[in-house]
């Protein structure tokens, strides 16, 4: 076996996963309609003209982009649960592929989905509300880090859930509070105690904050946010793969 083989296996597993997701166009459209809908609803709520548009440009759009990465990544990673329930996971397990390759492949698919979904919303949001981004490299780095950390959460859900319905419930349990407490729709500064502390425990908060800071000209907070997101990524992926490893080697 060549040294690169395990990694190539991962790439193929990721490719196969994404191929299925993009094959069903409905799936992609539906998953993107939700953030687009939220973007419109809340832009009207905060105002799309005059000085109010600043909030939309500075916080709402960056937040929506981060949130879309979250939905994209977690949804994609949850394909593990579907694969298990349909038996197609067995197909991969029966093949000469290491468990690590499977986990790395699934993680890559989740992250790629997160980045792609976020970029679509970035383009739509920016063009509709006239947001101009100064540092596209920094944005890509943050979106990538955020996507990986959300993928980690997705792997934990996939490992814990025994069937798709359970996975949906678990993911909603995590996604919805995160969405509303992650500083996307309501500024953390305006939240009553102890919600700001809760917000600080969520990766979405850091992703929103970082993207928002890039949009408003950048500050040292971006670096700190990246560190937190990186820590989140490592933590959740390690924990998630541990659980997945256990069910794969029962």
């Amino acid at each position: 076996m060549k040294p690169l083989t395990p990694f190539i296996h991962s790439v193929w597993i990721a490719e196969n996963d994404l191929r299925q997701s993009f094959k069903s166009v409905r799936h992609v459209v539906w998953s993107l309609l939700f953030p687009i809908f939220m973007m419109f609803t809340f832009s009207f709520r905060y105002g799309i003209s005059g000085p109010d548009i600043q909030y939309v440009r500075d916080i709402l759009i960056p937040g929506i982009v981060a949130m879309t990465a979250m939905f994209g990544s977690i949804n994609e990673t949850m394909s593990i649960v579907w694969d298990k329930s349909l038996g197609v996971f067995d197909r991969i397990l029966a093949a000469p592929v290491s468990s690590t390759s499977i986990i790395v492949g699934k993680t890559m698919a989740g992250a790629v989905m997160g980045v792609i979904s976020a970029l679509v919303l970035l383009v739509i949001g920016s063009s509709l509300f006239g947001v101009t981004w100064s540092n596209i490299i920094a944005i890509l780095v943050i979106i990538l880090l955020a996507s990986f950390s959300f993928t980690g959460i997705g792997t934990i859900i996939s490992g814990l859930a025994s069937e798709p319905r359970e996975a949906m419930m678990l993911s909603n349990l995590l996604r919805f509070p995160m969405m509303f407490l992650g500083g996307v729709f309501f500024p953390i500064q305006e939240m009553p105690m102890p919600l700001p502390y809760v917000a600080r425990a969520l990766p979405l908060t850091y992703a929103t904050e970082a993207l928002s800071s890039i949009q408003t000209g950048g500050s040292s907070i971006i670096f700190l946010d990246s560190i937190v997101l990186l820590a989140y990524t490592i933590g959740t992926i390690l924990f998630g793969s541990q659980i997945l490893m256990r069910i794969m080697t029962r």
Partner: protein
Amino acid sequence: MDNAIEVRGLTKFFGSLLAVDHVNFEVKGKEIFGLLGPNGAGKTTTIRMICGMLRPTGGTAVIAGFDVFQKPQEVKRRIGLVPDISNLFGELSARVNLEFMGKLYGLDKKTRRERIDQVLELFQLKERQNDLVRYYSKGMHRRLTIAAALIHQPEILVMDEPTSGLDAQTARLVREIIINLNKEGRTILLTTHQIDEADRLAQRVGIIDRGHLIALNTPEQLKNNIQGTRALEIKILNGVDQRRWIPIIKEAEDVDNVFLAEGKIRILSKDLSQIIPNVVTLVDKHGGKIENISVAQPTLEDAFISLTGKSIREEPLSKEEDVRRRMSRSGLR
């Protein structure tokens, strides 16, 4: 020829439930070996362990000379698994499905293309190769599942209930495929809960019940082993449900077993000369008339019933068997 598969003391607990209990058997190179048993007997659990997908609680399995628990990758490379449900990617076409399997088994692009064309041709799926698999019929699903297991040309093919749930015609086709694959020199381990299938396909049969392997021999020998036992078939007149007579006939002296087979009441006994008058009197006493009575050759089903004390079909799962069945499928399903 060396043994293709050697299973020694294979044991699996799911929690406190003993699903497979110290199972020993070997599959010789190039033979068709059938693992016969009712649903929930531990067949799927056994083959999942052999294929390196489930870790046993105890025992070993050596496949093509490799211990599956020490060298799972080597074993997986040499085995093609056909699971009991067709587990293909429904959102992808047949060709893309096979393409993916070829990649996982490390085939290069040229080999992949050749092999895919070859199996699509062999299983008559070429015309529909670019259709999404979810639009396939059950029979096409089954054929594609077998095709996918052959893409890396494994020396050993493991098939879990290869014909279950198929219509008679497709089942026959699948059986032909199995025989041909065996003729090409492939070792085949299959599980089934259909006695006639084991009888027709397998060169040797292992009977598994409640996690135990209770007999292992050629179908002929299994039948011969109960040679002392004779079978009597009767049909009782008046179109009344024949099943109603089973508990009544069971009461007769010297009757070992009574069950329904193809609309007739089949009675197993060591002493037919005694049994015939007994049964006739008993049926008469209960107001029945015997329409037809004949002595039959022992079948594999008779052997199965003599060994396990129960019929393989028409019996609802006991609670324990149901749990056993679900345990072996859960977790990864």
